[in-house]
C-alpha cells in the first residue's frame, strides 16, 4: 500500500505540475517556457511579468485550491456518510451560496469584494440550517438524515433563487447565472491566500480525523466498538467539509462535479484508506480544475466557457470508465 501510495502521489503531483505549467504558459497570449521561467524569477518585459505574475499565476493557484478543497470535502463526506453519492454541494452549500450571491447581485452589491462574502454567508447559513434540521429530525448525527437535511435545504434555496430571479432585471439574472456556472477568472492573490488558508486548515482537520473516518465507513456500531466518538466525528467532518466547500464557492462560484467524482477517481487508483485518499484526491482535484480552466479559456478565445460546465465535460468520461468498479 505504501508503494502504491508513493506511486499515485508522485504521478498525481507530476500531472498537477504539468497542467499548472501549461496553465501559466498558455492563454490568449502563448508564452515560451523560457519567458515564463524568467518572469517567475522576476525578470523580463513588464507585459510578460504582469501576465504571468498578476493574471495567470493567481488564476492557476486559485483553480488548484478550488479543486483540492472540493475534492477533500467530497472524499471525507463520502466516507463519513457511507454514501458514494455524497458530495459537498448536496449539503445545501451550493444552494445557500447561490442564494447569498443572487441576493447580493439583485440588491446591486455585486462588487468583487461583496459577492464572495455574500456567497460564503449564504453557504454557512444553509449548512447551519441543515444541521439544525438534522438534529430536530433525528437527534443523533445519522448520515442519512444529514444528507437528506442538506438536500431539503438545497431544494428550498433553489426555490428561493427562482422567486428572487423571477422579477429581477435581465442583467442581474445574467450576472447571477454566470456566477453560478463558476469561474476563477477574477483571481487575485488576496483571494488565493484566503482560500489556501481554508484548504490547509480544513485539510488538516480532515487528515487528523482520517482514522476515525476510516472506522466510520464500517458503520456506527463497529466504529463505536473501535473507540470512535461517532456523533462528534460525523458532525465535525460534515461541518469542516461544508466550510471547505463554502470557501471554494465564495472564491469561484459553483464548480460542479469535482466533489462527487474526484473521490471516486482517487479510489480508482487502488488507494483505500482516508489519509492516502485525501492526499491523492487533493492533487487530482487540483489538476482537474486547473486543466478545466485552461480548456475554458483557450478553446474559443477571447470568450470563456463556464468552468463548472468544463469540469463536468472532462470529468464525465473519466467517471464513466470507472463506473463499473464503483460499489
Amino acid at each position, binding site marked *: *500500500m505504501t508503494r502504491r501510495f508513493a506511486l499515485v502521489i508522485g504521478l498525481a503531483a507530476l500531472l498537477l505540475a504539468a497542467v499548472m505549467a501549461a496553465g501559466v504558459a498558455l492563454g490568449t497570449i502563448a508564452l515560451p517556457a523560457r519567458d515564463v521561467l524568467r518572469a517567475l524569477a522576476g525578470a523580463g518585459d513588464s507585459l510578460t511579468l504582469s501576465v504571468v505574475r498578476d493574471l495567470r499565476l493567481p488564476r492557476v493557484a486559485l483553480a488548484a485550491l478550488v479543486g483540492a478543497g472540493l475534492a477533500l470535502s467530497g472524499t471525507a463526506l*463520502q*466516507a463519513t456518510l*457511507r*454514501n*458514494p453519492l455524497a458530495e459537498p454541494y448536496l449539503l445545501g452549500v451550493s444552494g445557500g451560496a447561490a442564494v447569498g450571491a443572487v441576493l447580493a447581485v439583485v440588491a446591486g452589491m455585486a462588487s468583487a469584494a461583496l459577492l464572495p462574502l455574500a456567497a460564503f454567508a449564504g453557504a454557512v447559513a444553509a449548512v447551519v440550517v441543515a444541521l439544525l434540521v438534522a438534529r430536530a429530525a433525528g*437527534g443523533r448525527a445519522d448520515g442519512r438524515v444529514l444528507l437528506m437535511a442538506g438536500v431539503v435545504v438545497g431544494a428550498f434555496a433553489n426555490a428561493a433563487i427562482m422567486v428572487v430571479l423571477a422579477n429581477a432585471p435581465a442583467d442581474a439574472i445574467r450576472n447571477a447565472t454566470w456566477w453560478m456556472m463558476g469561474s476563477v477568472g477574477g483571481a487575485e492573490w488576496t483571494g488565493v491566500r484566503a482560500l489556501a488558508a481554508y484548504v490547509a486548515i480544513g485539510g488538516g482537520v480532515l487528515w*487528523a480525523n482520517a*482514522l*476515525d473516518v*476510516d*472506522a466510520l*465507513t*464500517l*458503520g*456506527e*456500531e*463497529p466504529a*463505536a*466498538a*473501535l*473507540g*470512535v*466518538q461517532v456523533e462528534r466525528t460525523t458532525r465535525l467532518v460534515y461541518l469542516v467539509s461544508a466550510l471547505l466547500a463554502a470557501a471554494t464557492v465564495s472564491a469561484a462560484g459553483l464548480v460542479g462535479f469535482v466533489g462527487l467524482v474526484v473521490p471516486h477517481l482517487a*479510489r480508482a487508483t487502488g488507494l*483505500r*484508506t482516508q489519509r492516502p485518499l485525501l492526499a491523492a484526491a487533493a492533487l487530482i482535484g487540483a489538476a482537474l480544475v486547473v486543466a478545466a480552466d485552461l480548456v475554458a479559456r483557450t478553446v474559443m478565445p477571447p470568450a470563456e466557457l463556464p468552468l463548472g460546465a468544463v469540469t463536468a465535460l472532462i470529468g464525465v468520461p473519466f467517471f464513466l470508465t470507472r463506473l463499473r468498479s464503483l*460499489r
Partner: protein
Amino acid sequence: MIAFDAVAARYPHQAALALDGVSLSAPAGEVTAVVGPNGSGKSTLVRALLGRLPLERGRITIEGADVATLSPRERAQRVAVVPQRESAAFPLPVRELVAFGRHPHRTGFAAWGEADEAAVADAIDAAGVAHLIDRSSDELSGGEWQRVRIARALAQRAKALVLDEPTTFLDIAHEMSVFELLASLAGGGIAVLLVSHQLNLVARFASQIVLLHNGTVAAAGAPNDVMRGDILERVYDWPVVVTRDPAVGAPSLVPLRGRRR
C-alpha cells in the same frame, strides 16, 4: 471481567424498558453466553456497553472501571466488541480491516509502530485469516468476514471480548471453528461474552449461561441449571425437551412439533 450491575436502559421514544435490572458477569478465562428469544435484550446489552444507549440505572464495569467514566477510546482498549451487523461502505483490503483493531491505541498523529504490527500479525494468526489478508472485503464469504472481524477484535489486545451472534449465517464447520476459537481465547485468559441463539453449542462451550427474557434475567448459571425444559418452554413459548448430547453429555435442546401456547 465485564460486569453488568442492575442495568436498565430504554430506547428513545419507547415506553417499555429494553433492559430492566440485568446483572451478569463474564469472568476472565471463561466463555459466558447470553441467550434468549428475539427482542429479549441481548443486543441491547452490547449497545449499552458501547455507550450507544444511555443507562437509566445500574452500571457496567470492565476490570472494575465504570464504562461511563471511560472515554470511548479507553473503553475500546479494555474490551473488544464484534457487533452484529457490519458492512464496509467501500471495499477495504482485509489487512487494513484487521489493522483497524489498533485504532483505540493510536492517538492523533502517532505513527504505526512495532507493537501495532505485532498485534495485527498475532491476531491474523490466531483467527486463522492469513490466507485472506490480500483479499478485498467484498470478496469474502460470510464465514470469512466473521473471522476477519474477530481478527480485528483480537488486534485490539483487550482483556475482554464481546461478540453479538458471531455465527449467524455460518455453516456447521465455520460455526464450530468460531466456537473453538472463542474457547481457546478464553483458555488464554480472555473474558469472552458471547451473545448467541445457538443454545446447544453454548451449552457445550460456555461455563455460564445467562438467559434473558423481556429485558430481565430469567435464569443464570451453569448450562445444566439453565438448560431445563420448564424454563426454556416458558421463555421461548414453545414446547421443548432437553436431552443429553451423545458426544459429551451436555444438555441439548430439542424443539418439539407444535404451536405457540
